[in-house]
């Protein structure tokens, strides 16, 4: 066999030598990033293991993460993130599929992807007010429903609790899913369906044996990204929820703004560290699945 698998293009043997002068060019960047990114990150990590007031190493803060109310907050955060990620991933994938079945360069597709780009970044206070205007107590939809004898809040106001937050988060999760999942769908080659068909496979066979397994890592990875996205979100919840601190970001706000309470400041750092760990684990899994996707559908 004369053929060989393609090898990476030959690298030129001579690499530019590392000179002090060349490194100088990157000093402003590294200096800035050190002060405003590395130092804060280390502050959180070190602070999580430091006793209040004192300088000694302690596991008190991390141990305090085991407190019932903090565990419950993490539980609620994870529930909220997971449910909004699952709903967002499924609906977003359906929308993305609806887009790829149309013309690849069509106006509809371009309009929807552009809108998704905006809405995926649409969070925070603006989003909270959008939903207050929609299904708040005097919102557009609420009033319309009430005029027709239906009261969405007959069993209590759920907008400011987890179900409400899930609904509001879905509003930026679906567009994000469209953006991250669309490239994977585009990577599906028409030849695969045709090959499967000519080999005797039905549509069912194609989806269960070819497209399904191929898209699974991309779907799972995208859902993880959505999870991290919801888990990190703060502003929308902060604007919507004024009483209590059901989720971790709001607990951290409490710890930050009530520094008078002894032993709270570094507990906040411990919770922050907890968040970073959750997000980092999720993002690591995401990039693992993303690599698999790039190999198959790149």
């Amino acid at each position, binding site marked *: *066999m*004369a*053929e*060989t*698998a*393609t090898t990476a293009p030959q690298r030129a043997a001579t690499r530019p030598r590392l000179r002090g002068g060349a490194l100088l060019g990157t000093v402003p960047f590294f200096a800035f990033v050190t002060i405003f990114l590395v130092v804060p990150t280390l502050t959180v990590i070190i602070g999580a293991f430091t006793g209040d007031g004192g300088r000694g190493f302690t596991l008190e803060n991390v141990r305090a993460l085991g407190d019932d109310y903090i565990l419950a907050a993490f539980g609620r955060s994870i529930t909220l993130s997971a449910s909004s990620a699952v709903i967002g991933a499924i609906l977003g994938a359906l929308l993305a599929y609806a887009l790829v079945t149309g013309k690849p360069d069509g106006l509809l597709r371009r309009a929807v992807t552009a809108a998704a780009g905006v809405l995926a970044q649409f969070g925070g206070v603006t989003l909270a007010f959008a939903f207050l205007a929609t299904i708040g107590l005097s919102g557009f939809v609420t009033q319309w429903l009430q005029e027709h004898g239906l009261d969405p809040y007959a069993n209590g106001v759920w907008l400011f609790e987890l179900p409400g937050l899930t609904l509001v988060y879905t509003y930026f999760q679906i567009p994000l899913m469209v953006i991250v999942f669309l490239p994977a769908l585009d990577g599906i*080659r028409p*030849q*695969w369906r*045709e*090959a*499967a*068909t*000519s*080999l*005797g*496979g*039905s549509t069912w*066979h194609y989806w269960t*044996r*070819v497209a399904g*397994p*191929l898209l699974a890592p991309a779907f799972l990875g995208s859902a993880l990204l959505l999870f991290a996205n919801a888990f990190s979100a703060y502003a929308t919840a902060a604007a919507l929820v004024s009483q209590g601190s059901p989720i971790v970001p709001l607990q951290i706000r409490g710890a930050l703004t009530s520094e008078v309470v002894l032993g709270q400041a570094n507990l906040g750092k411990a919770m922050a560290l907890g968040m970073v760990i959750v997000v980092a684990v999720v993002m690591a899994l995401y990039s693992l699945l993303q690599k698999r996707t790039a*190999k*198959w*559908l790149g």
Partner: protein
Amino acid sequence: MTGVAVHLDGLRRTFGTVHALDDLDLSIAPGELIALLGPSGCGKTTALRILAGLEEATAGRVLVGGKDITALPASKRDMGMVFQAYSLFPHLNARQNVEFGLRLRKRSLQRAVEMLELVGLSGFEDRYPNQLSGGQQQRVALARALAIEPQVLLLDEPLSALDAKVRVQLRDEIRRIQTEVGTTTLFVTHDQEEALAIADRVGVMRSGRLEQLAAPAEVYLRPATPFVADFVGISNRLPGTVDGETVEVLGTRLPLVGAHSGGPVTALVRPEAITVTPDADSTAKVVTSSFLGSLSRVTVTVGDHLVVAQVPSGDLPELAQGAPVRLTIAPLAVVVE
């Protein structure tokens, strides 16, 4: 296993006002390999895809082994198909790719190993498509298509994404395997050399129609139309005058392919039909000569015309630039327009 006969009967395919296929009739004998050759957009791929069931014909019938399968869905047709590239399922290794059709048919998976052996890929069973070269991927695709013991093998430009050297090697191997298994085969390509080398018969297509369907030598030596003469091989376009069943070109009378009403025409003459000899009295002169191996090519001016001729490389020293030469045309039949 012996092949089945395939008939395409008055196939038509229109997109709006464009005829991708214009009443195409084509019969493939059992076990025969026919190459459809033509420029892009000539309808060759459309014909293949209609035979595969991946596209629907606007009108006409497809018969395989005497049965009308025009309405049969692609998944029920038993056609082995090899695409231009990237058709292997990337999440399955070579063996699993070949097993795909066997599993759907609940047949013995042992055949997958045998098929990979047939295409010369023993030992590569566990490689994934991205760990295989382009040529190896196409071998797997061929094994996958043949594993299901298809009634017809369809090859849609299977070599055009490969390097020149691999292309020739795999071309010969496809021919060997096809002869060995005896499956009726339709091979679509835009590469005339490939078509002539591999096929029992070559069908040259243009604008949805067959211009000529004949054995490779016939297509090359006796092109039926100026289009075929132009598309297959290279031709000199020389002025001539038709007189009855002959045409006079540069003072030589040549037999004519087909009939022509007479008068001034353009004749298409192959470079290898022209012999170049040094002649100090001639007004024709060598313009350039290029060395191509055992044979070489010289360009000669005759009056206002440039004539390309093929000569043995040994003659080159006598045919330097500016040398006066005489041209002789072999009395082979030519096509005129």
